[in-house]
């Protein structure tokens, strides 16, 4: 069990780290898909299969597509050829320092924390149970999420739509 977890962690963290370091945006996006799939694998490992499939469907299926679309539309493929500026180096170094110190703080906190003992057997949550709970207990939250998603969809369309038509007079 632990070996599988470690394997998943290596896949997840390795591809995430590589994604943040690559200069090629498409590679970064695809590596992130691998990382998200690793997160889904972790959910599967923990026994939350519904969430795992939802994670793949939303992240690998939808978010990654939108990200790739954005990358292609903004056409930043040349970035990999540019020289690295000195400002970038200092920013990267300070970002690394911040992230590393945060990792150290949280890591030590986690390592020293004591949690109540877990139940031995894995919790079972059938899809039906999740559905019933979503609809009954968390109905209000579900509604709000629905509204948020709708507003986000409409907002995204409005923001991204190109309402300014190309000026017909900018041609010779």
């Amino acid at each position, binding site marked *: 069990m632990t070996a599988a977890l470690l394997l998943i962690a290596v896949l997840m963290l390795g591809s995430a780290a590589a994604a943040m370091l690559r200069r090629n945006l498409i590679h970064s*996006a695809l590596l992130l898909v691998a990382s998200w799939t690793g997160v889904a694998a972790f959910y599967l490992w923990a026994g*939350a299969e519904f969430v795992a499939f939802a994670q793949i469907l939303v992240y690998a299926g939808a978010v990654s597509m939108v990200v790739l679309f954005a990358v292609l539309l903004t056409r930043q493929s040349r970035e990999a050829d540019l020289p690295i500026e000195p400002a970038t180096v200092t920013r*990267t170094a300070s970002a690394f320092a911040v992230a590393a110190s945060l990792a150290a703080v949280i890591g030590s906190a986690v390592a020293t924390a004591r949690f109540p003992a*877990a139940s031995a057997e894995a919790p079972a949550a059938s899809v039906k149970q999740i559905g019933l709970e979503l609809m009954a207990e968390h109905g209000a939250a579900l509604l709000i999420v629905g509204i948020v998603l709708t507003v986000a969809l409409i907002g995204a369309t409005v923001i991204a739509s190109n309402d300014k038509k190309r000026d017909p007079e900018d041609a010779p």
Partner: protein
Amino acid sequence: MTPLHLCLLISTALFCIGLFGALARSNTILVLLGIELMLNAANINFIAFWRYGPNPAAANGMIFVLFSIAVAAAEAAVGLALIIAVYRHQKNIRLQEATVLKG
């Protein structure tokens, strides 16, 4: 070390990788993706506590994650739409150069 500790450490690592990306990279898309990674790290915590917490029978942890995924999707959609709008305006998506709010 219990499995719960291990899971939490992994999520810490993922969170910090996301943070590093969000701080270090100048490309707006990558900053957004770094934030997505941080969200995912939080989700891992939810699932870990659901799995190894005191009351695993309630599906609360999973439901939290589902909501979080939905919100993350909305965030990605709006964020990328904003990036495209910014790009259309100044032909560039470098974070340092998006300094004006006027369009």
